[in-house]
């Protein structure tokens, strides 16, 4: 990878809630055009980190720089205008409105005309495979449908960086298999994507760069292969001492232990 300017540059972010240090000294750079992933066990601080990046939370210390501009603690609506949009792990549809109207709200960020925004909504729905549900109420969608809607609404704002918070969570293997090409298509269209995933396996084939967060700290980073074989990562997922045991067993006879990381 070239050492061009990072699209998103997080510098030593800290955030605590009372005595709980949710995010401690996290720094990372998201390169433009890539699909990268932030993984980690439950309660690692992934969603908090997303909230800090997108402006929903104010960091105690540290800096968030988007495309060379300091956006630390800037309101999320202003970040969206700059091209940084997030989705929510717990989907947040405008339940009483149709899918078309939901997506159009995102499209309105750059389009003043109602007709244009509705047309754009249709195009985006096509892109994420929601076209048949355009006139359904958002509240009537299945979980998979709502995840797609969440994605579509964010995509309609024409983001440069899309922060996806567990778009695959709660989906069955079939639905995951359908969702992955959608995300890949978004990256191919030129949008940089940073996704949070709890399920490691899902992102292994997708991401070119992975960060692992555990107990608020970055414990590993690199390509998916590098990360899964990292002892600290294995321990974070499977418990203290696991890496050691796995290595001993691998030294014995077992073919490879790296796959164990995916079991979480």
């Amino acid at each position, binding site marked *: 990878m070239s050492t061009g300017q990072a699209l998103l540059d997080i510098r030593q972010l800290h955030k605590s809630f009372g005595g709980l240090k949710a995010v401690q000294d996290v720094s990372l750079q998201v390169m433009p055009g890539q699909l990268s992933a932030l993984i980690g066990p439950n309660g690692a601080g992934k969603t908090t980190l997303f909230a800090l990046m997108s402006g929903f939370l104010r960091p105690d210390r540290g800096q968030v720089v988007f495309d060379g501009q300091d956006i630390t603690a800037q*309101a999320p609506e202003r970040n969206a205008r700059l091209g940084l949009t*997030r989705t929510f792990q717990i989907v947040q*549809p405008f*339940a*009483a409105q149709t899918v078309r109207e939901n997506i159009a709200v995102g499209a309105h960020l750059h389009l003043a005309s*109602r007709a244009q925004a509705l047309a754009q909504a249709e195009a985006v729905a096509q892109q994420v495979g929601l076209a048949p549900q355009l006139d359904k109420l958002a509240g009537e969608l299945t979980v998979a449908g709502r995840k797609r809607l969440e994605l579509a609404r964010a995509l309609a704002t024409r983001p440069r960086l899309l922060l996806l918070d567990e778009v695959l969570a709660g989906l069955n293997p079939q639905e995951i298999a359908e969702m992955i090409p959608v995300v890949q298509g978004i990256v191919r269209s030129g949008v940089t994507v940073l996704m949070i995933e709890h399920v490691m396996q899902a992102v292994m084939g997708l991401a070119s760069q992975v960060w692992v967060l555990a107990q608020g700290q970055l414990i590993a980073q690199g390509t998916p292969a590098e990360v899964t074989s990292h002892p600290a990562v294995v321990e974070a997922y499977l418990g203290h001492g696991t890496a050691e045991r796995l290595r001993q067993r691998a030294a014995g006879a077992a073919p490879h232990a790296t796959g164990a990381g995916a079991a979480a």
Partner: protein
Amino acid sequence: MSTPRHDLLRIALFVLAVGLVPVFSNSGVVLNFTMTALYACLIAQAWNILGGYGGQFSFGHALFFGTGAYAHAIAQMQWGLNPWLSLPLAMGMALAVGACVGAASFRYGLKGSYFALVTLAFAEVFRIVATSVPFTGAGVGLMLPLRESAANMQFASRAGYVWLVLGLVTLALLVTAWLRHSRFGACLQAVRDNEDAARAVGVDPLRVKLLATLLSAALMGAAGAFYVQVFQYIDPGIAYGPHTSVEALVGAIVGGMGTLWGPVLGALGLHLLADLTRNLFGQLPGINMVIYGAVLVLIVMFLPRGIAGLGQFTWRQGLGSGRPPSGGKEPS
């Protein structure tokens, strides 16, 4: 979803139908009923803009009503302004009060019941101030001198007032129709349904809620001015008392919040009911408030989407598109 043309056509038909009432009837009862019902539609629709489309439930819309009423009366009596000129002034004053109260409440993130309480408190504060300062006539109130002429907005027959308030209702309907088919309206409804999600896609909730407050307040101010013009009298109790606030919100909620015709239906229905009971119970003071309360409870329990929701409900069922939405996640 109806198209803008649809909405405009229906508004035109409504205006035509109601506008013809004084042509075909000069019965005082009919005209009086039409006028007061339209006035109820006006305040319900004004409330609906902020409460129904914006999800911000104000319990003190009398604040804007009273301000409009006093501004209208004072501008005529103290400054000798023509009422046709003081009407926009009254709307402007209500709008200014809306700007202050809205900015203060939304800046500090007051939502739901907190916003309701703050608006209620502001209305009370204004009522007490109006009772104590001299330029509102204090507790005695202000009496508008009688000078009957169309140029002076004082009409010989009720017909003039019917057309006047019909004009204001039309304005409110057009504003609402615009909300339904514009970027601003889409953003407003997004904030109502889920503020965080709206922010994530670039909607500024403060700006959107404030603008809705201004629209709502200005229309409420117009209603206040109209009231003064018809009854030629205003005092702090009428202006800022809870009666108007309640009438506005009950009309909108009973009819169906966040719909174009709900508040019209609600206001009309309540008005019919109030008139009917007044005939049954005689002039028992405040009986209409008792009725409003009872109807509100029943509607909230059995028809949470109001009378207008009833039509939508059966229509959806007829299409077989499954069960009606329970709203999913409640807006906070």
